[in-house]
Each structure stands twice: as structure tokens, then as C-alpha cells.
């Protein structure tokens, strides 16, 4: 092992990125490791200064190589620029005026959205469990309970809110803010409103983030009690980043009762727990099937699995939504069942879920982020 003090001593002779402060005192050293007489040092520089920092890198390498016992020294420049900063440039139709060489804009801040009390993610471990239909009906049910509700369709891979809410118009832009469309008392924004329904969208991770950030921040949501975020299905990087970057009050997991779906739902719960986002509850969708002809009940996906899973994990169970042709038909026709048949038993299920959600969100146990006071 080469003595650390000797390393620091050697690097003291090299000026840091500002050209004056000795490197060890400049705060630019990102990491130092050594193995078998080889020293690996990383220096953090601004991406725009990478070319200018090259002489410093070479000087640091030379200084380390001169140390007794050093077989090799590898110094690398790394950039600490926020990924968000570059992602914003990739945002379609969204250009920030920026002079070349000017100081890079600060990272997009993840503070709460002014006027929005609760942001609730509706997520599922896998696709095809009826997450978007549930999110739409839940949003309308919340609105019927007197809440001011918005729905952000963040499922950029398969935006379904336009169809579920029967929306066709493009949202207007006013003072650089998108004006959400209103259907059944819910303010709706979806990437599907901005692009044609049939056109396939190929999304890279950072593009998803910038699109979602835009839909969160650059929409005139106004005063809302709850903003329901219809998440893309799955528990991948996109979902995790989204969960971390939006100031969520909690998450609702939708699952079908069969074991395979529950396995994925469990991953969904685990993902949110990992980032300390409370689980508002689990909804069992396609819970059972009532035959429209004989009125006999079939538990197609073996009913009750989600309730059991919720109990096992100690998270609240919000309700069971039956597999019913009426829900499917009304959803596809753009008139979700809670709005088109508010007295139906299915609408009642969603209303109960909405009430349970309100109770959970307004309960004093809901953890709000602490106030940050400077000075």
C-alpha cells in the first residue's frame, strides 16, 4: 500500500480545475483507489471544461507515477453534470435558450408542485392488469367525492387516458403551460393527447423522464386535492426514477389475483418501499367474474390473492374490482363506469376505494416531507 499522505503530498503540487487551488484541497477528487501498486484517481470536472482539464490530468498522473512504489497511475476525468440537464435538451419541442459556454442550468428541482396536495402513483408490477382503467375510475370517483382531481397519464409506452376519457382534442398551450383537458370532472394530461393514437413511440429512458417531468411541471394543473399518476407498468429503471423524482404522497398497486401477477405486484410494493414511498394500498382487479347469462360467479384468476398478499405484507387492501364486461365496454367507449353508471355495483366498488384512499391520504400518518429552512 502506498501511503495516503504521500499521495496527497504528491498531488499538492498539481493545481486543481480552477488553476490555483492544490488538487487535494479543490474538492474535485471524486475517488481514489489503489491496488497492487496501481493508483486510480478520478477528478470531477465540469463537462464543458473537460478539454481544459487535460493538462491537469496529465500533471496528476505524472506526479503519482513519480511516487516510490507506484507501478502505474491512471487518472480519469469524470463529469458530475446532472443527467436531467442533458435530458431536458432531448425533450421534444422544448428548447431552453442557452448560450454556448454559459453556466449550465440548475437541475430540475423535485419540489412539490404548487397547488397540488397529494400526488398518488397508480402502478402495477406487470402490464395488462387494468391499471389504467382503475386509475381512470379512481380519479372520477375521487372527483365525485368532491375532490379536485387531475390525472397524469405517465404510461408513455401505452397512453390510454385519451381513449378512457374519450378525449380527442389537443391541449392548448398558454404562457408556456399546457392546459389540461377536463372530462368527468377530472383534469387530464396524457402523452397520447400530444401524439396520434396509432403512432408507435420509441422511448429512451431519459426521454421518458423529461416527458414526465414536463407533464408534471409544465401543465397548468391549478389547485388540486390529488393528482393521480398512471405509471408505466413494471418495476424497471423508468418506474424507479419516476417514483423518486415525483414528490409522491403514496402509491396504489393494482394486481390481478393470480399468483404470477402477485409476484410482480410484490416487486412493485418492494420498489416503492425501497424509496420510502408509503403504499396506500393494493387493489385486486378482475377479482371474480359474474356470468352475464347465468349470473353464476367464477373466480377466473382465483379470487382473494391480492387481499391475502396485502395482509401478508402489512399494507392496506383497498378493494376488489370484478371482471365485468360493463367495465371493459365503458372503458373502451370513453365513458368509465363510475361516470356512466354511478349507481352500478362496480361504481360503488370504485367509490369505496376512493373513500379509502382519501382516508389514507388525509390521515395524519401520511408523511409529508419536512420543511427546509435556510438561515
Amino acid at each position: 500500500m502506498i501511503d495516503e499522505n504521500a499521495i496527497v503530498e504528491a498531488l499538492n503540487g498539481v493545481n486543481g480545475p480552477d488553476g490555483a487551488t492544490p488538487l487535494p484541497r479543490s474538492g474535485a477528487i471524486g475517488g481514489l483507489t489503489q491496488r497492487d501498486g496501481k493508483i486510480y484517481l478520478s477528478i470531477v470536472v465540469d463537462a464543458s471544461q473537460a478539454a481544459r482539464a487535460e493538462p491537469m490530468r496529465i500533471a496528476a498522473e505524472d506526479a503519482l507515477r513519480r511516487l516510490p512504489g507506484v507501478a502505474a497511475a491512471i487518472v480519469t476525468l469524470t463529469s458530475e453534470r446532472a443527467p436531467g440537464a442533458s435530458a431536458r435538451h432531448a425533450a421534444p419541442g422544448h428548447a431552453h435558450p442557452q448560450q454556448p459556454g454559459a453556466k449550465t442550468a440548475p437541475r430540475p428541482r423535485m419540489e412539490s408542485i404548487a397547488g397540488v396536495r397529494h400526488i398518488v402513483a397508480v402502478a402495477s408490477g406487470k402490464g395488462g392488469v387494468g391499471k389504467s382503467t382503475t386509475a381512470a375510475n379512481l380519479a372520477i370517483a375521487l372527483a365525485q367525492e368532491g375532490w379536485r382531481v387531475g390525472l397524469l397519464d405517465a404510461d408513455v409506452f401505452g397512453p390510454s387516458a385519451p381513449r378512457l376519457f374519450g378525449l380527442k382534442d389537443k391541449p392548448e398551450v398558454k404562457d408556456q403551460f399546457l392546459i389540461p383537458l377536463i372530462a368527468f370532472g377530472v383534469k387530464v394530461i396524457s402523452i397520447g393527447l400530444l401524439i396520434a393514437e396509432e403512432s408507435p413511440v420509441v422511448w429512451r429512458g431519459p426521454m421518458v423522464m423529461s416527458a414526465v417531468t414536463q407533464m408534471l411541471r409544465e401543465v397548468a394543473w391549478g389547485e388540486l386535492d390529488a393528482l393521480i399518476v398512471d405509471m408505466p407498468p413494471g418495476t424497471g429503471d423508468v418506474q424507479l426514477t419516476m417514483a423518486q423524482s415525483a414528490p409522491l404522497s403514496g402509491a396504489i398497486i393494482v394486481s390481478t389475483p393470480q399468483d404470477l401477477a402477485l409476484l410482480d405486484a410484490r416487486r412493485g410494493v418492494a420498489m416503492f418501499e425501497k424509496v420510502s414511498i408509503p403504499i396506500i394500498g393494493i387493489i385486486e382487479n378482475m377479482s371474480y367474474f359474474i356470468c352475464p347469462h347465468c349470473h353464476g360467479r367464477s373466480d377466473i384468476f382465483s379470487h382473494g390473492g391480492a387481499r391475502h398478499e396485502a395482509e401478508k405484507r402489512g399494507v392496506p387492501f383497498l378493494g376488489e374490482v370484478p371482471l365485468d364486461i360493463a367495465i371493459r365496454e365503458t372503458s373502451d367507449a370513453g365513458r368509465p363506469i363510475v361516470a356512466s353508471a354511478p349507481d352500478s355495483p362496480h361504481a360503488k366498488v370504485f367509490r369505496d376505494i376512493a373513500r379509502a384512499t382519501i382516508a389514507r391520504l388525509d390521515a395524519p400518518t401520511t408523511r409529508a416531507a419536512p420543511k427546509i429552512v435556510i438561515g
Partner: protein
Amino acid sequence: MTEAKQPWPTRIRLTDDGRLLTIEFDDGSSVALTSVRLRVATPSVEAKRLTPAERQAMIGDKPVKITAIEPIGNYAIRPTFDDGHSTGIYNWTYLAELGRAEK
């Protein structure tokens, strides 16, 4: 729920011209951490592989200050230090741990 067992912060205060961060928890306790202490203890992956001694050597006792604090969801903060470091995300559990180690 799992988080119910831990104290939850109610207020985070940056005072002393960015040199002192005080975190007040809902159980009435509070911890005060200096900016230097936080900088050396950064949970950033870039510094994770360093030993405490290496960190001390790298970061030293330079009087770094915190210039900005960004909330990360409702579970963590990301302070920006005046030496340019800003990739450490400190969650409540970690801050409470640092506070306990201080006592």
C-alpha cells in the same frame, strides 16, 4: 408499515451561513450536523469506496459550506456543497444514524 418505527423529520434547518444543518424529528429529538461532517460522510457512490481515512484525506478539514438543499421525494435531501459536490443523497435513516454517531 415499516417507516413508522423510525423518527420522521419535521423540519430541516440550515444555519450558521451554511455550516450547520439541524434536523428536528417528530419524536421531539433533533440532531445537528456540521457541513464538514456531512461532506465527509457523503453517501455518494463516488466516495463510498473510500475508507473513512481516505475520505478525510481527500476532503480534509476544508471549511465546506452547504449552499443549497434539494428535497428528494419525501424521504431524503440532496445538499450542494460549495466545493462542488452535490451527488450525495441523504435519507432520513442515514441522517438519524449520523446524528446518533455524533452523540
